[in-house]
């Protein structure tokens, strides 16, 4: 056991997805990253992860249902003793398949809902999928499986927060995640289109908090503010290489979704190394673990053990220095970048959004 124990494995099984969400956290350039791990690689990863302390695995992507071997992967993770969550769009789900996933040991199903309005949802994900999602959610409950509804919030849907709560109640969801867009991956080029204004956020927050109190013994309601609107950053992934391991579809093992976009860091592939070595010793994991890398103002700040200086990827993409204080922090010398960006939430974006694609990303 190392000093840092990973608790959760995020298994991104495939970048393939029938949807094209404008805020997808997948990398912008997916062209060279299509070769997916084999079943045996994943099964090995689950056993190694459990031996290192991991207790939960979340199957995500892309769309994990597009893996033909998902039943075997669920069974393997379950046999390793992991709590198995499936994060899906719900779109390719069939009733029979859900039955076999359940008997393979699935513990929870998380379905994403882009909007309660079909036309609005189509603007976000590029297709009309709401009905399929609602059907999938109904099957989940019919089979006695727990259901999480996940909604990514942004300027275009925040005003329908009451509808999201009502929908989750109607579906008898066990957990409702109302998570504001984080400006990573595809959300960054689409930021002007997605950033809300403070008034919208405050309204949504009060609705969410009221729902949380009213529904507390039935449904867990989670509301995540965008860090652009908080004074101090979130402890991104609970600290770099502290609690989470993410394995990308091609086997790259990462501390977070965007870590491979940082310059000068090398990350190892599951095909070539043991998961334990990658976690304990690979240069990419070691680099930003702990506090050695910090600059001022983080280095001497008393919050550094709580937020770990924020998100490294956000620091890199916005300031050009991956070791800088996350600019969402009010103490960051680059905080004006965030203050200025927030202003865009008050105006109208001048360009349509860019949709996620497996082809070359369109330049903006």
């Amino acid at each position, binding site marked *: 056991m190392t000093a840092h124990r990973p608790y959760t494995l995020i298994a991104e099984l495939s970048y393939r997805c029938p949807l094209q969400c404008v805020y997808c956290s997948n990398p912008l350039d997916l062209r060279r990253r299509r070769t997916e791990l084999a079943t045996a690689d994943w099964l090995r990863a689950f056993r190694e992860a459990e031996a290192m302390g991991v207790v939960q695995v979340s199957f995500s992507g892309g769309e994990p249902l597009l893996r033909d071997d998902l039943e075997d992967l669920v069974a393997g993770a379950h046999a390793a003793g992991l709590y198995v*969550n499936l994060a899906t769009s719900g779109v390719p789900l069939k009733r029979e398949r859900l039955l076999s996933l359940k008997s393979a040991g699935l513990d929870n199903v998380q379905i994403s809902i882009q909007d309660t309005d079909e036309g609005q949802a189509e603007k976000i994900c590029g297709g009309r999928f709401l009905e399929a999602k609602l059907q999938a959610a109904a099957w989940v409950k019919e089979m006695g499986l727990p259901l999480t509804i996940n909604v990514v919030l942004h300027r275009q849907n925040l005003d329908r927060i009451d509808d999201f709560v009502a929908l989750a109640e109607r579906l008898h969801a066990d957990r409702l995640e109302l998570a504001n867009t984080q400006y990573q991956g595809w959300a960054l080029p689409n930021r002007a289109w997605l950033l809300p204004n403070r008034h919208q956020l405050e309204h949504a927050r009060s609705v969410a908090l009221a729902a949380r109190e009213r529904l507390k013994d039935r449904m867990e309601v989670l509301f995540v503010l965008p860090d652009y609107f908080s004074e101090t950053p979130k402890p991104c992934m609970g600290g770099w290489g502290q609690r989470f391991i993410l394995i990308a579809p091609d086997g790259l093992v990462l501390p977070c979704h965007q870590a491979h976009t940082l310059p000068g860091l090398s990350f190892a592939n599951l095909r070539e190394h043991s998961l334990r070595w990658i976690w304990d010793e690979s240069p990419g994991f070691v680099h930003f673990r702990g506090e050695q890398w910090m600059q001022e103002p983080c280095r001497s700040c008393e919050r550094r053990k709580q937020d770990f200086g924020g998100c490294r990827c956000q620091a890199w993409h916005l300031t050009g220095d991956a070791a800088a204080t996350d600019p969402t922090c009010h103490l960051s010398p680059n905080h004006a970048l965030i203050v200025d960006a927030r202003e865009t939430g008050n105006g109208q974006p001048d360009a349509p959004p860019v949709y996620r694609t497996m082809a070359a990303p369109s330049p903006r």
Partner: protein
Amino acid sequence: MKLDRNSVPRLAAKVRLQFDRHSGRHLLLYPERGMQLEDSAAAIIKRCDGVHSIAEIASHLAVEFDADASDIESDALEFLQALCDRALLVVA
């Protein structure tokens, strides 16, 4: 939902009780979260089977651990109420 000594509790569908071989403690696992339990708490949860009431659970534990049943009952009630308020426990 307010629990009393006659409530018959069981874990919510999304919650799993699991022994953690790394820490030697029991964990409650549920979506995106985990909670490490004291041994006394784990002993209570293990008996939340949807059949026995909180009063019955407490009297079993009192015999097993040679302790005062009413103390155990009030501790159990408080602990289980907190779980219920977080949608981790339901009553049968």
